[in-house]
């Protein structure tokens, strides 16, 4: 089914990677663009091109949401229903779309124009509700943000009448609301016209830090970054310079991977950086690669970020043209290749080892640690993995020095941070503020307080996976240590605020549903436990709850928290655990109200008869 041209295109992409298997997901994207989805025969053809077993391709295709295993309408509409968008009214948009198109999730309109699905967080929490539109014959989709039912009508009509727009830029166009320090550093350029172009960047003194770094030499760069104390912005907060120094001496090749798989619900700062200042992160990648003696670097960007991907690819091309990438960079004799690699819809690929497995063209399962990626990472070679924001800081640290950097923040949490503020606040957005700024300042000073000035019920301070903080923790300074002392974690600094308007049962169920959906399925507690928790919450919500379900969920979640393979496990239940801990009375009141007679659950005693299982072909079968 694949034309010779498409096969050739796939073979070209295979050459971009040290191991051609890495091109599997890109190849499937190409095949999907051609066919509209990935019929088994097409997957078989891709397997033949890669000279691997068909099952290897099918297994990979089955892992990623953005690879279609069944036919879709001309446009794939995905509405985010995760907590961030939920708090901004996505349920209304969903109802409107379902009514307007006459279809439910997972269905296609009879005219074959639209397939509707719900999506997990798409990194637009401050501008939600958001819908991604992806024509099945395009690789990249476009985001429509700040949706209202009226805008949805308009979008649908425009797609029907005029087709897909030429530009992938955000709609409405331009960077999302942002602010913070009087003299922004990372966000200094995003409001400028053509902020994404290299000319703008160069006019601002861009790539001077690279020139300086090359002059300093690799080790001096590493020492400077180490001295700055900058800690990883992805979630774990590990000091970046220390991570670099873990690379074993004398083992080459080494790789660097920029983690642009921003997928922690409530986090949307990397997207802003990549869309409106891509050269800043690219310069960071180059300097870090230079410091770590890396010859091939990758930016692994989540598949949903079509516009950011487009801008990154353009910016990388520009950087090659200007000699900041490729052979003999700035006459230093240093060579670097940079490949932008798209994920395909899997939250777990933000976990660094899962990301590497995914980048190797496999299902995004986390790997055993140790060996840590610095020792055995991509293709079992020493690998540095840093977040977009972390690397974006690097040019500034080099340009202005570690001492300058340390004037911001606290002693252990140096520097400033991009806080993604979302939920029920008046002015959600990305705020660049020093570590140690309090929650109150962020929410009330920068965020303008809560919607309708309702009292805060709870705050998730570091992305959806972190435990909820109650309203009385508003004076907690936002640095790694203080948030931890308050009972949560700073994580990715995605701050989600919710007020009394948000029923806790619904919030807990949505949170658990997300992690159940995104579990990679590798280890038993997460794979089985997530589904169990969701079923209990569904039953409670539907009016079949029992008071003892709360302790039961605490008991089950403890298995997940303590026993899983990777940090996804604990992250998937902290939200629920903290919700039960903080809002037990609300749960109990809900149960009492919806199940006043205390009905016991109906346990199905035998499997449902399924006519799809036919008669056995062989008597023994």
């Amino acid at each position, binding site marked *: 089914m694949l034309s010779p041209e498409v096969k050739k295109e796939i073979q070209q992409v295979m050459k971009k990677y040290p191991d051609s298997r890495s091109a599997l997901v890109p190849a499937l994207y190409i095949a999907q663009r051609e066919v509209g989805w990935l019929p088994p025969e097409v997957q*078989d053809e891709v397997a033949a091109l890669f000279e691997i077993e068909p*099952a290897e391709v099918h297994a990979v295709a089955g892992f990623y949401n953005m690879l279609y295993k069944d036919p879709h309408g001309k446009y794939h509409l995905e509405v985010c229903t995760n907590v961030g968008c939920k708090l901004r009214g996505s349920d209304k948009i969903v109802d409107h779309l379902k009514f307007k198109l006459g279809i439910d999730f997972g269905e296609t309109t009879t005219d074959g124009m639209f397939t509707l699905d719900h999506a997990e967080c798409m990194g637009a929490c401050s501008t939600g509700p958001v819908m991604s539109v992806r024509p099945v014959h395009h690789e990249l989709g476009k985001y429509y943000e700040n949706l209202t039912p009226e805008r949805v009508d308009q979008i649908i009509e425009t797609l029907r009448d005029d087709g897909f727009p030429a530009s992938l830029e955000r709609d409405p166009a331009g960077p999302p609301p942002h602010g913070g320090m009087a003299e922004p550093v990372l966000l200094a350029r995003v409001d400028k016209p053509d902020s994404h172009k290299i000319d703008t960047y160069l006019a601002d003194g861009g790539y001077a830090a690279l020139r300086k770094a090359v002059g300093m030499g690799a080790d001096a760069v590493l020492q400077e970054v180490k001295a700055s104390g900058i800690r990883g912005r992805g979630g774990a907060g590990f000091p970046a310079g220390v991570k670099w120094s873990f690379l074993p001496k004398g083992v080459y090749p080494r790789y660097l991977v920029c983690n642009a798989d921003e997928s922690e619900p409530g986090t949307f700062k990397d997207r802003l950086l990549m869309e409106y200042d891509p050269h800043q992160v690219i310069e960071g990648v180059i300097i870090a690669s230079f410091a770590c003696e890396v010859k091939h670097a990758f930016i692994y960007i989540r598949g949903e970020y079509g516009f950011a991907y487009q801008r990154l690819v353009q910016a990388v091309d520009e950087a090659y043209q200007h000699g900041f990438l490729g052979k003999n960079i700035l006459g230093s004799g240093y060579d670097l290749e940079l490949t932008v690699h798209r994920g395909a819809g899997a939250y777990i690929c933000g976990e660094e080892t899962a990301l590497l497995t995914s980048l190797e063209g496999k299902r995004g399962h986390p790997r055993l640690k140790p060996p840590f990626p610095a020792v055995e990472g991509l293709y079992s070679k020493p690998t540095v993995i840093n977040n977009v924001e972390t690397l974006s800081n690097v040019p500034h640290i080099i340009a202005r020095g570690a001492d300058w950097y340390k004037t911001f923040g606290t002693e252990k949490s140096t520097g400033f941070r991009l806080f993604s503020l979302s939920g029920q606040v008046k002015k959600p957005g990305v705020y660049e503020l020093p570590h140690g700024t309090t929650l109150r300042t962020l929410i009330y000073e920068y965020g303008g307080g809560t919607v309708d000035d309702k009292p805060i019920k709870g705050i998730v301070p570091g992305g959806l996976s972190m435990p909820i903080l109650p309203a009385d923790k508003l004076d907690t300074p936002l640095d790694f240590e203080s948030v931890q002392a308050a009972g949560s974690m700073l994580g990715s600094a995605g701050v989600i605020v919710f007020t009394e308007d948000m029923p806790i049962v619904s919030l807990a169920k949505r949170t658990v549903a997300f992690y159940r959906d995104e579990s990679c399925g*590798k280890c*038993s507690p997460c794979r089985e436990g997530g589904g169990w928790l969701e079923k209990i919450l569904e039953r409670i919500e539907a009016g079949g709850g029992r008071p003892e379900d709360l302790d039961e969920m605490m008991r089950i979640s403890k298995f997940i928290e303590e026993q899983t393979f990777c940090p996804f496990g604990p992250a998937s239940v902290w939200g629920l655990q903290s919700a039960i801990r903080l809002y037990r009375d609300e749960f109990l009141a809900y149960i009492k109200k919806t199940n006043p007679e205390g009905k016991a659950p109906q346990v199905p005693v035998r499997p449902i008869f399924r006519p799809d299982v036919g008669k056995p072909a062989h008597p*023994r079968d």
Partner: protein
Amino acid sequence: MADMVKFTIDGKEVEAPAGELLVDAAKRIGINIPVFCSHPKLDPLGACRMCLVEVEGRRGRQLVTSCTTPVSEGLVVYYDSERARAARAGTLELLLINHPLDCPICDKGGECPLQDQAMEHGNGESHFVEEKHHKNKRYPISDWIMLDQERCVVCWRCIRYLDEWEDKPQLGLYHRGGETVIDIAPGHPLDAKTSGNIVEMCPVGALTSRVSRFSYRPWELSHTDSLCTHCALGCNVRVDTRLNQVKRLLARENPAVNDQWLCDKGRFAFGYMQHESRLTQPLLRKNGTLQPASWEEALDAVTAKLVEASKQPQRVAAIGSAKVSNEANYLLQKFFRQYVHSNNIDFRHGSDIATAGRGIPSIAEFEKADLFVLFGVDMAENIPVLDLFLKRAVNRRHAKVLLINSRRVEDSRYGTLLQPAPGEEVLLLNGLSAALLKDEAIAKRAGRLSGYKAWLADMVSEPTAKLNLSESDFGGAVAMLRRAQRPLFLYGEAVAGGKSGAANVTALTNLALLLGAVDRVGYLPYDANAQGARDMGVLPDRLPGQIVLSDASAVSRLQRQWGGTVPAEPGLTYLGMLQAAAQGELDFLYVMGSDPAAEGMSEALQKVGFLVVSDLFLTETAKLADVVLPAADYVESDGTFTNLERRVQRAPKAVRAPGRAAPDWLILTHLAQRWPVVEEIKDPKRKKRGHGRTPNIWSYASPQDVLQEIARVVPMYAGLTWDALGDAGQQWPAEALPLRPRLQSVTLPTLSRRSFTHWLIAERVLYDAGQLFATTEQGHNLIMAPAVHINSHDLATASLAVGQEIQVTSPHGSVRLPLLVDENVSPGTLFVPLGLAGAPAEQLLDGQYGPVPARIEAVA
């Protein structure tokens, strides 16, 4: 050995090699930490979380998986702590919530790790009050295996086995989270040839054997430690039986032979053992038809004819078998040598094969060799478990592979393939030798060889041009050989038989000699007891122990043992016998466990004066016989087999033979006891007939008695009693059969295609139409359909179409076959597998070894 470290489990001090996994170290001191995903033969994964223990860490006690945690000095482990127990109970609880409650009808029930661990480590109650998750239940993922996704605990053992050992990841995980299932790609059932191992590794009843499903409860089975006899590797198996029926075969661990593995033919193709078409009583030809007879009648008829025929022993012959035990083969040759005075003794692929008679150096060599030179060997097809070890060597130790084969066999994906045209193998091997001799160190090591060198140089100028090989492939091959520290040279039947066999093997041996590796040249035979039949002296020019007839002291030793005399002249070879038969020169032929008629020899066999066949089935040969004797299979009698690395292993009786079938050793003993030895002794003319000694009277009461005699008679089997063989068998040292290695000039075999357009290649395949395989119903779809395989280039040249039926003609015969495009067949050659229905390849070969010239024509 790694450094030893000391650590504690529950306060007990343990010593273990540093880096050993905790789960393994604990096992050695009797703590069986429960596992699902962990498996001693697979890389650690840490997915199931069943083996959680607490260890003392920097941040206090932490739960870790003992299957991924290496032990280190001072490690403090708590296995039996409350938290660790609760954690394991929690994992079990989670694994069970969606597990179906169909244990009463599950094949695994009774031997199920999930059941056992739920009993031992579970908390005994379920809190789960929701609906269980439904997935696909019981559907076939191959002709052999059923998958039940609901029973699966997603431990990945099956996936990892197929990936890490088979190197064919044909099973994958699909979807994710709670939806995660194991599955095949749609339309791509498993075809890995050792896939059945995943049934055995599965810790639950998710993967079950379609051959054995629902036919037993594990606790009712009796177990017999035995062997598989489908190929020459001699994999160790456990035969599970109930009520005198074989219910299943499982792999039995033997690190020296098959590790823990079994191929699918070995595991599943045992349907023949109890097939309804087994012979259950002797048959005697009366009035032109075979009719049931008593043993008395049958044996009397055989004895009468044979006594008569033995007056002209050169017109009497016996065909032994590489498929039956040492004891049967030994007695067969003894009977014909001692009583009939004939050396007309051989077996298919016996003396017609050029081999040093020592098989391969050892299976363990696969763990050491850094270069495998595979000459006319298709291990993936013919000896799948050994092929696993090759794959392992390549994938884990980065061993190199150099293949010399006219076909692109599956293992070609692991190395460089040189494809000489049939007849040009010697030229190629000599070319490689000549290229190596340019290396001074190699030339020096080879010693005095000016004559050889000059001869070689003369013979192989510009081999690449003559052979139509690319310089880079040839140069690459030379470089591989030169760099090899420990090469292993293996050759197969395909190149060792027939007219060019001796030249091929000599040329390969020369190459090995130049690299100082002559003791690492090995022959890979097909059949289970190919080595044993040789050792037992089922050869026209070799006595037991592979002793040559001219070895006077050995002959006299044997005569002392046996009594009587051993004929001095070499007898007819297998092909020689059949040629003699065709000429009407055989008055009597005894065929044991062999079927020459199926190989296009019917006409010749019809001309034999009196034909006796002992076999399991009414084979093509048996149909022509005058007397058919129903033989017992190897599972129906004690016996020993010698595998390709000269390991003598025992196969004890597991079930009774059907009807009145009897083991060959017993049939031969009865025949011998009917032999008129006593009359002979009394015969005053005895001395005149030149028989100096009196042949002993046979008095074997059991196969063990026969083995005892073998151990006395066959030097390399000295001391090998039934008990001494034990469960793992014993290997006789290759040095017991010394080589006299020297470089020999090799004459190029003169193969000519004459007016024919192609070469016909005929080799064995695993799933053929032979009775040993085709009687297992579940394997029917796998049997290779008769077809002639041809390269698309040749197809275009001949303007033929795919699927078209065509006429294939060789100098020996002509058959009609459908066409199959197969790019693995090189241009100018045709491939027709042996053993297919209707025996097309055999008809074209007429008993010859391939390749033979052939042509194809459209059927008008």
